[in-house]
């Protein structure tokens, strides 16, 4: 596979900061994860289907896809935040040893996992922060709870926590509504980092932010990856994914349909799954052409490949489910583009 080697050694296009190869130990191994919701009237919604991936220390994996593709359900599953009518299969193990996030009790999750081994950087920082308390008060409380720092050391520990997320110390006594969007994001990130959890999950961290702020937020998150954290970013923002990720997983109708290095995906040779290619072509900086049709309803998935009704390459073979193999689930993947 010459192109793979080439892709791995080619440095990516301008915005990407230097990447180090994800050589760390795996922090999370997800195997065959499925999530179904049992709905009233016997409807059965298959939100996540047989998803497997892992994340290593010092690595960022971006999970991208259209809204409703199952990526936020996947995040909820990893965080133990699924509603009661959800049924899961498979496993999501913290490594090197640790509970299965799917089966651990809420007590275990809140005492030993959340904030300590797994930090959540929320979608909407302003909603995550308590409006009536200053940033300092919220950080101090989290520091005390998570690290058990005694009162005497609290002030210094809180400042260190703020500095870790580049939150300016002279803004610690402000209330969330007095912060800009960027600073609110940093405050929320500071909270997520308090317990020095090795693994971070960021759920749509850039939604609603301006492009400049997206770039800055993403670069700050990347800094934590380069400091050795593992990071799972869930996003529909492909530009943000390109900027931050080492690897990209494209999700469609609850399945990962392509998983490859960010450099190969966004650069040469480009995506090989027709859906992934369509998603990139929809970008205004590319062809700006939408994928025809709508994603399927998750309670009425077609047999076989779920993308078939929208796929320009579909054939009779596609009536059987393509296996996920070599980073790809497609019977007729696009040829790696040869540049001639």
């Amino acid at each position, binding site marked *: 596979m010459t192109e793979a080697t080439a892709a791995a050694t080619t440095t990516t296009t301008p915005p990407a900061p230097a990447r180090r190869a994800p050589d760390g130990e795996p922090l999370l191994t997800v195997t065959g994860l499925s999530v179904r919701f049992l709905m009233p009237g016997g409807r059965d919604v298959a939100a996540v289907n047989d998803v497997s991936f892992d994340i290593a220390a010092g690595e960022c994996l971006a999970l991208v*896809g*259209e*809204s*409703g593709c199952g990526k936020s359900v996947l995040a909820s599953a990893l965080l133990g935040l699924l509603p009661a009518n959800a049924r899961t299969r498979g496993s999501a193990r913290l490594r090197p040893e640790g509970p299965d996030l799917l089966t651990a009790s809420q007590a275990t999750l809140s005492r030993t996992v959340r904030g300590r081994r797994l930090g959540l950087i929320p979608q909407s920082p302003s909603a995550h922060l308590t409006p009536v308390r200053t940033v300092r008060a919220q950080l101090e409380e989290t520091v005390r709870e998570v690290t058990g720092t005694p009162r005497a050391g609290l002030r210094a520990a809180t400042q260190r926590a703020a500095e870790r997320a580049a939150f300016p110390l002279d803004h610690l006594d402000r209330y969330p509504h007095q912060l800009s*969007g960027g600073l609110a994001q940093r405050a929320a990130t500071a909270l997520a980092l308090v317990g020095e959890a090795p693994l971070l999950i960021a759920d749509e961290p850039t*939604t*609603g*932010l*301006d*492009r*400049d*702020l997206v770039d800055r937020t993403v670069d700050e998150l990347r800094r934590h990856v380069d400091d050795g954290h593992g990071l799972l970013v869930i996003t*529909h923002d*492909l530009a943000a994914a390109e900027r931050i990720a080492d690897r990209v997983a494209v999700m469609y109708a609850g399945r990962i349909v392509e998983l490859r290095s960010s450099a190969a995906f966004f650069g040469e040779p480009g995506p090989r799954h027709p859906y992934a290619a*369509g*998603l*990139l072509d*929809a*970008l*205004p*900086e590319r062809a*700006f*052409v*939408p*994928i025809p*049709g*709508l994603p399927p309803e998750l309670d009425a998935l077609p047999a076989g490949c779920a993308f078939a009704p929208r796929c320009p390459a579909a054939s009779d073979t596609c009536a059987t489910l393509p296996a996920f193999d070599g980073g790809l689930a497609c019977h007729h993947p696009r040829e790696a583009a040869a540049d001639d």
Partner: protein
Amino acid sequence: MTEPRSSVSESMPESESSMSEPEPQALEIEPPMLELDGITAGYDRRAPVVRGMSLTVADGEAVGLLGPSGCGKSTLARVAALLHRPYAGTVRLAGRPATGFRFRAAREQRTSVGMVFQQPRLAADPRMTLRQLIAAPAHATGRGEELRGRVDELATTVGLTPDLLTRRPHQVSDGQLQRACVARALLLTPRLLICDEMTAMLDASTTAALVAVVEEYRSTNGAALLAVGHDRVLLRRWCDRVEDFPSFAERAAG
């Protein structure tokens, strides 16, 4: 008010597709679809978020207005759609000054503008089905029967299936709901469309699809567009020209 009135058109003369190209007499015959003249607006008279701004959108023209969130561009968009009364300044639609805003707006003027908002969930009555949502402007103007077929047509255009039309907002995705909101905005065949961060919550494919719907509509109906947003790449790809919303600092300094 003696302060130098900054206008977006003045502050950004670099517009690529120059508007001064068409023969002057053509412009005299067709008044601009939208003229915002010295608009000052906001939610607190002592601290208006929009100050003395002017902007013109010619008939059939697509203008992008670019600015960071919270800069006041959404307020300006609401003023242009006659949904928010400015403290000062004049709004002219096709040459005629607006005399009222919100429920006091002249019906004919109000219905000549279609608006799409950033957050479809805040812009949709949760009790309505998507079909009722799209048809709402027809019922509000007593044209429910007459526009029945048009509702179906638009639903197909924006890519909503009959099954989705029977659902309520909480049963569909943001993207599907925004598709319905675009259909709603087009129902009364507006001469001007105002899209305020229409795609900020949407994925790339839905964004491209909805922009294509708007452009298809504009090319058949010759409607003008004011697209407000923060994504420069998107607005440049979409619009004839893109203006920067002047920042407070610039305005204070200028």
